[in-house]
């Protein structure tokens, strides 16, 4: 349990980008976004509902995503999210900054065996 908590902490700061990635692949609704993230992580990470709604709300406020109600004929109607051009830019920026950070953090944390 401890290990998975540590990784959740590391992931939390990137939730917006993780959700944007899913939406860049196509419009989607809450539960399917959670499933897609679980699948993308190979079942190692599970997004919790409260974090999902918090992130979606923030992204919508920042106009990186927009929402619309689906037209399911049976069962409850679902609220779909669609990434905007602003959201795509934000995603690309987050990806770039993550790549840079990853390289630096690797250098900083990983033991350098000098021979």
């Amino acid at each position, binding site marked *: 349990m401890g290990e998975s908590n540590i990784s959740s902490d590391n992931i939390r700061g990137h939730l917006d980008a993780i959700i944007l990635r899913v939406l860049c692949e196509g419009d989607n*609704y809450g*539960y*399917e976004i959670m*499933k897609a993230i679980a699948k993308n992580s190979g079942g190692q990470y599970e997004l919790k*509902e*409260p974090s999902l709604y918090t992130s979606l709300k923030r992204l*919508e406020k920042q106009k990186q995503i927009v929402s619309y109600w689906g037209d399911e004929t049976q069962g*409850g109607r*679902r609220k779909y999210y669609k990434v905007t051009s602003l959201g795509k830019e934000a995603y690309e920026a987050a990806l770039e900054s993550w790549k840079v950070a990853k390289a630096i953090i690797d250098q900083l944390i990983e033991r350098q065996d000098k021979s």
Partner: protein
Amino acid sequence: MDSLHKHVNQLFAKYKGSKQIQELKREILSNLEAKVADLTAGGMSYSDAVDVARRSITSIDDLIDDQSKVYVNQMTAELVQRGLLYVLIAWIVTMPFRIFGSGIMLNGLLLLGSIVLGIVYVVLRLKKQDMHLGRTAAFDVQAAFRRRKLAWIIWAVFIIVTILYNTAMLFGSNIWFQTQVKIAGPYHFATLGTQYALPFVSILVPMLFHIVPGLMMKYEAGEDDGYEA
């Protein structure tokens, strides 16, 4: 899907009114329904799936904005209107108590209050400009809920204390010396009743606190209304 419905209704029990909150409620319910459908398709029993879904979200308080943009002048007008209504009712209800000194004073004060609130209300309703109606301010709805609870607690304590105080002042010696309570007649009885009844007029105060969170949500400004905070 009944027990899911109930669960979501419970989550949202405090929150009514605003369109955004209604949408969030529908969204959460539909996602939980999708979760249950998915879990049962994966072989889980229906009741277990509902359990899992219910445990996955147990509070929505964090999802409600701490600070809500509210059309403050429209909200104030309705609050004054409700206050006016309550004070008028209290004024009418306390009319019979005019036969006693404290009753006359309270009844007079309520009449004065009605007149003042009435004037304020008319002034507020006369201002019809968009600038005035569209003005927003940020309010903390959660804090309003806390203040509402506090107002009721303080009022309950006040009522208990006045009842105890009246009883001690009126019947303290009867209780102490274990003598019979003597009520001289209907007039005396009415005097006693008035002393106990008048403090209840103060229920006006918590009643007004009670409606504030609802009004905040009713006059909440949507994200896309174009008014900047």
